[in-house]
């Protein structure tokens, strides 16, 4: 594939509508889960059926605890309603995790994007910027990842693609200082949305989590109430460790929402069910492809429907 073809793909118009696109993205998830659930639902609820259900839930990354509880509920219900019950249980959990972005009523609204390394923060920011720009909003990106080689350049490329401004310092600069300058700048005064990129960090590195707290303090000091949204990006292929990630990031800086990325692979992303159950952090968006428009609002009904269709 040549560069221009790749670029064309990035800008390709979405002709299928939101639901169609979501379904496409979840196709493999759905196919796998549904085919096997049909198998389970075909028979009576016995030890084998329960074990099959356990396998389905566990292999979707729901985790032992959530799977056990859901199966416990199913066991207590009439086998005739097996399918509807399972669907209903999963929907009920996902519904609690539905929420929209908290950017209205703030000018500028500040969004801080955090997460472990390699889960798609910068790409998500590119997509988010495009989305806000399409809504007619003035967007400013802040290159707060001053650590990883070429992270600033990567965000700048996205800035050019989408056609929004990027505030950046040199590589190795203090991210707090970048954020300070960005919020102080004239550009921020004119912006509707300011999106701050941060360096990927493992939640187990205490000094790096302290750094995030500091960045957040700087924002709040310069613009009381900011950040209005703290988005934790989680890769859909992550296993049970995602719960720890969410827990520790949440404890450190108060996560307001999760963006679940890379749902276009074969990973099921079932970990969000466990996260919503245990931590009550909503899922705001899902990434369902590499194209610039492949970022969608999280919708519990669609997500459940797509899983069970």
């Amino acid at each position, binding site marked *: 594939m040549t*560069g221009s073809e790749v670029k064309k793909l990035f800008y390709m118009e979405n002709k299928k509508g939101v639901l169609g696109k979501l379904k496409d993205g979840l196709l493999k998830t759905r196919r796998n889960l549904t085919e096997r659930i049909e198998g389970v639902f075909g028979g009576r609820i016995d030890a084998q059926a329960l074990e099959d259900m356990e396998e389905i839930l566990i292999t979707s990354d729901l985790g032992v605890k959530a799977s056990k509880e859901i199966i416990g509920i199913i066991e207590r219900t009439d086998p005739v309603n097996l399918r509807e019950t399972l669907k209903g249980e999963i929907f009920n959990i996902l519904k609690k995790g539905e929420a929209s972005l908290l950017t209205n009523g703030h000018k500028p609204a500040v969004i801080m994007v955090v997460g472990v390394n390699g889960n798609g923060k910068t790409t998500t920011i590119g997509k988010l910027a495009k989305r806000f720009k399409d809504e007619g909003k003035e967007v400013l990106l802040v290159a707060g990842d001053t650590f990883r080689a*070429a*992270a600033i350049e*990567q965000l700048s490329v996205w800035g050019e693609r989408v056609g929004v401004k990027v505030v950046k310092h040199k590589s190795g600069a203090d991210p707090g200082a970048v954020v300070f300058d960005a919020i102080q700048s004239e550009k921020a005064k004119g912006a509707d949305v300011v999106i701050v990129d941060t360096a990927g960090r493992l939640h187990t590195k205490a000094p790096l989590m302290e750094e995030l707290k500091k960045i957040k303090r700087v924002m709040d000091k310069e613009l009381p109430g900011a950040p209005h949204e703290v988005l934790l990006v989680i890769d859909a*292929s992550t*296993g049970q460790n995602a719960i720890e990630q969410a827990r520790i990031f949440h404890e450190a800086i108060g996560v307001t929402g999760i963006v679940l990325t890379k749902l276009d*692979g074969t*990973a099921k992303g079932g970990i969000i069910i466990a996260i919503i159950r245990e931590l009550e952090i909503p899922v705001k968006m899902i990434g369902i492809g590499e194209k610039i428009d492949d970022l969608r609002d999280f919708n519990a009904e669609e997500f459940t429907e797509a899983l069970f269709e």
Partner: protein
Amino acid sequence: MFEGLTNKLEGIFRKLRGRGILKEEDVLSALKEIRLALLEADVNFKVVKDFVERIKGRAIGQEILQSLTPGQQVIKVVHEELTSLMGESYKKTHLSPNPPTVLMLVGLQGSGKTTTAGKLANLFKKEGRQPLLVAADTQRPAAIEQLSLLSSQIGVNFYGTKDGDNPIRVCEDATHKAKREGFEPVIIDTAGRLHIDDALMDELKMVREKILPHEILLVADAMTGQDAVNIAQRFDEALNLTGIILTKMDGDARGGAAISMMAVTGKPIKLIGVGEKLDLLEPFHPNRMASRILGMGDVLSIIEKAEASIEKEEALRLEKKLGTDSFTLEDFRGQLKQMKKMGPLSQILDLIPGLGKFRSEINIDDRELIKVEAIIDSMTKKERGNYAIINGNRRKRIALGSGTMVTDVNRVLKQFIQVKKMMKAFSRRPMGGKGGLNIAREVMKWQ
């Protein structure tokens, strides 16, 4: 890493150890716990099932029930099976007799290919070779730039063109360049791609046909969940992998993906990434890892680390001073510096045997060491030579100079005196040039 699993299994086995005779139901309940622990550790459902079946077969047999110490016996069986699941022993990456050897890194987006490419180049450079880093990721914005920056940080050669170029062409040109100019090995960084993206997987197949890499290594994230089996299987089917590199092992993911990927592909995990710095790439040792999972710790790794990073002469010089009154703060600082070279303390702690249960309660902050160094740096030469003269006023000045509190200075001095005492005790035994290890132990006591 693997802490959670270790904790759980240790809990189970503590129960087993307490009994003389083991009943069949004990084994079954232990296996149930092991199953759950493995599932929570993200080992794939089917892989766990096979594993537990195998253990059950061996464990409930006479081998265990008739043995004198059945608890030990279960541990032995589980350990053996875990080791065999992960591949029997460490497989080294070998270089071709006809250079250039070509190593190609493949994997999903965000698994850590580019950083790993840099780390590999660094490793080969340390061996005295002249690697060539090749940026075949012409797709992700600034990926070429990232690899180019890494190569200049390490001081190795780099080949890359511009975004959007044909990666097959880039690889061909790079191998020609390596042949002409004598680079060895060639390390190719490819664009991240989904294992189900047929077009991009075909592209990799074409690179493989044209370049015939000696090693095709799947770079995979240690945090990967159940999907690890699909990813590894698809990449292996398409490219016939020669091995796997597991990244981000410095987090607290239990790393069951390691077991899953090896089980479905039969390909060894060769290296593990244990930090963001460019020297944090280590060999993967299945038997040691199994010991670690079972809470037996990993003494061998610690010793190797110590040997690799402590300079012999410096160690000898320090050793001579041990146990004599001439061991000064100056020497103490030298030891701290040596120890820092072994890597972050938190990592070394992971390797200590028997710590499993308590590991999570010990929160080591490597910045503490930096503080200690700063405090010693703020002393005069005379003070470093004779700690006894450091009175209240001097302590105040040192605190000011190092940006710490007087209580910090007091603590460091107290610790120094402890180390001095300990050195005396140790000097009665032969030390084999591993002075840093003792300090490591002592530092752990302070926390």
